[in-house]
């Protein structure tokens, strides 16, 4: 996505309707969504008017600041990494949930933490096998169950194991079902109760994994999952392709949930903490 806006600011010598139309088009092409793109353009128009800006280059800073504001991870957003924590990984199928867990596990382990995985997605065929493979690659342990088993029973075993081994981070893979919201809600609710009774005082983190190539439906997904459980952040995957992942802007401005990590490939190290400054600067450089 680097240099995404470079063309815009290089190609216009004055701020006119064509400039705004082009900005709108670029934002939409980046999957920001027509509505959010329109909001961004309208806000910039106001700022340009108020500050008597004539030169496209001078409105660049405003645009940057507007976008950074929309993507900032709040203070303390990564605190859970420093404490004993349980991280639920939530998301629909195919977004890269299991891969993300593998990458996070490896990253935390390399930072000297004790990591345990819980394969609580007992619904999808071979989900447990796939997670085990990642556990092996990351060199961490995993607690799993059989296809169709109650996810809570897997989590129960995992908690027991986490306590016995004084684990720092317990990463929980959940089923990617959205279509039966009630079931998933009940399932997560049951798992929450389990943690409250058997593993209290741990730091809780609920991360939704979203596919960076997904369009406006990613906003729906985030919205739906936020109704199921309290979300604390999301992970944007598949950011190594040609998609721009602009939907993150829309999600953050509507739901106030920040991007915390981005996945940039299939290798185990292809994950990093999200930095709004770096991301936005990259768009303009």
């Amino acid at each position, binding site marked *: 996505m680097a240099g995404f806006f470079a063309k815009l600011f290089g190609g216009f010598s004055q701020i006119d309707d064509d400039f705004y139309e082009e900005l709108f088009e670029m934002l939409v092409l980046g999957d920001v969504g027509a509505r959010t793109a329109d909001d961004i353009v309208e806000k910039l128009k106001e700022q340009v008017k108020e500050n008597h800006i004539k030169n496209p280059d001078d409105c660049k800073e405003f645009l940057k600041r507007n976008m950074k504001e929309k993507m900032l991870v709040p203070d303390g957003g990564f605190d859970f990494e420093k404490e004993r924590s349980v991280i639920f990984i939530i998301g629909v199928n195919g977004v890269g949930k299991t891969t993300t867990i593998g990458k996070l596990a490896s990253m935390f382990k390399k930072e000297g933490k004790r990591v345990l995985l819980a394969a609580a997605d007992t619904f999808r065929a071979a989900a447990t096998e*796939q997670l085990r493979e990642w556990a092996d690659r990351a060199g961490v342990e995993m607690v799993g169950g059989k296809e169709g088993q109650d996810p809570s029973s897997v989590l129960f075993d995992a908690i027991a194991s986490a306590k016995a081994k004084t684990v720092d981070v317990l990463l929980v893979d959940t089923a990617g079902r959205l279509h039966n919201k009630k079931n998933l809600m009940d399932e997560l609710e049951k798992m929450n109760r389990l943690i409250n009774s058997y593993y209290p005082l741990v730091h809780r983190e609920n991360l939704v994994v979203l596919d960076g190539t997904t369009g406006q439906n990613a906003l729906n997904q985030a919205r739906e999952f936020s109704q199921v459980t309290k979300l604390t952040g999301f992970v944007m995957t598949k950011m190594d392709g040609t998609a721009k992942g602009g939907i993150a802007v829309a999600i953050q401005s509507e739901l106030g949930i920040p991007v915390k990590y981005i996945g940039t490939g299939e290798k185990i190290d292809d994950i990093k903490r999200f930095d709004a400054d770096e991301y936005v600067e990259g768009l303009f450089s």
Partner: protein
Amino acid sequence: MAFESLSDKLQNTFKKLRSKGLLTEDDVKTALKEVKMALLEADVNFKVVKQFINSVQERAVGQDVMNGLNPGQMVIKIVNEELVELMGPECAEIDFLPGKAITVLMMCGLQGAGKTTATAKLAGALVKKGKRPLLVACDIYRPGAIKQLQINGEKVNVPVFEMGDNNSPVNIAKAAIEHASKNDNNVVILDTAGRLHIDEEMMEELILIKDNVDVHQTILVVDAMTGQDAVTVADEFNSRIGIDGVILSKMDGDARGGAALSVKAVTRKPIFFVGMGEKLTDLEQFYPDRMANRILGMGDVLSLIEKAEENIAIDEETSKDMVGRLKKGKFDYNDYLESLKQMNNLGGLSSILGMLPGMGVKMKDIEGQIDEKQLKQTEAIILSMTKEERANPKIMSLPRKGRIAKGAGVDIAVVNRFVKQFEQTQKMMKQMPGMFGKKKGMGGLGGMFGNFF
């Protein structure tokens, strides 16, 4: 919800379009502005949208506004037709070799597009058609991929050929075809690994399979939720590897699926199937009209258009007749009844009003004034009249009213009120015959409503 506000916006836009007769450039532009936003919100690629809007604009300006529709709806009708045309053809079929000859299908797509699931679904569907498919695990990279295919293969009762993850996909494909010919399978489906369209090495792998194995059809699996990037992906796969068709996955969610249009526009290749969910039976035929409807997200407007179309034949005949009578100053109970019937044909008054853009908000006030029950009652009253009474309203008298009230099962006061109302309407009709002359089509009460709202 996003859709509601879009619908509201559309209604407000349509209210501004007042021209009659031919669609003006302004009408078309205003309506298409909303269509553009709708398509963008559905994730149709910006460039595809631009092109589409331009071609519709050319076609729409100067067209006759169909009876029963306002200019905005007329534009939507044209947009919908163009969309369906673009999405077609309906129920495209995968090409198979006849008899025992082995047809090789290669599935490809991005990671997480739903290839393995779609592959198993396709195999299951082929079994039902009397084919004997063999599934082949060519994804040697993703952990759990082979296992997933095996489990899914078992569920649809289709054998799975695998050689672990230590052989090249080309070798696996070759061995699989040999295996198929020995085991009497006539379709071989290669489930390849998910890959990025910009990953040189991985794209090369697919080309290598095609070079070494006689692949008859290459099928691209596209996630219906894909955003703007769908064009880039489809274009790369098509130009580098060459695809013959598309399976659209994950259509069971609430995605509007604009990616389907983007992919179709850049590849011009048919969409064979849509995947509707996790269960392995959920593979459906592709219907361009349903897809167009979903992408546009204006089902309510479209169903009104459809109903108007259905009724136009009957409507035109009776209206012509009625307009002629009205011009002569004639308006009797038969005409009144005819008007009522026309409205009922359109699905009843509240249904029509509900479907009309701009009506959503006002529905409640209007329902209070014109309630459908009352219209039913009116119909009963007229039907209780003799032929003579209907054709010649002047002969109405108190004993006649009493008989009619009994027949319709209402109080005589109701009949009185209706007759008075009718006489007023009759007077009104005589005063403004011009109203019906200008606008052909929905005459009678239907026409009146058309002008009032």
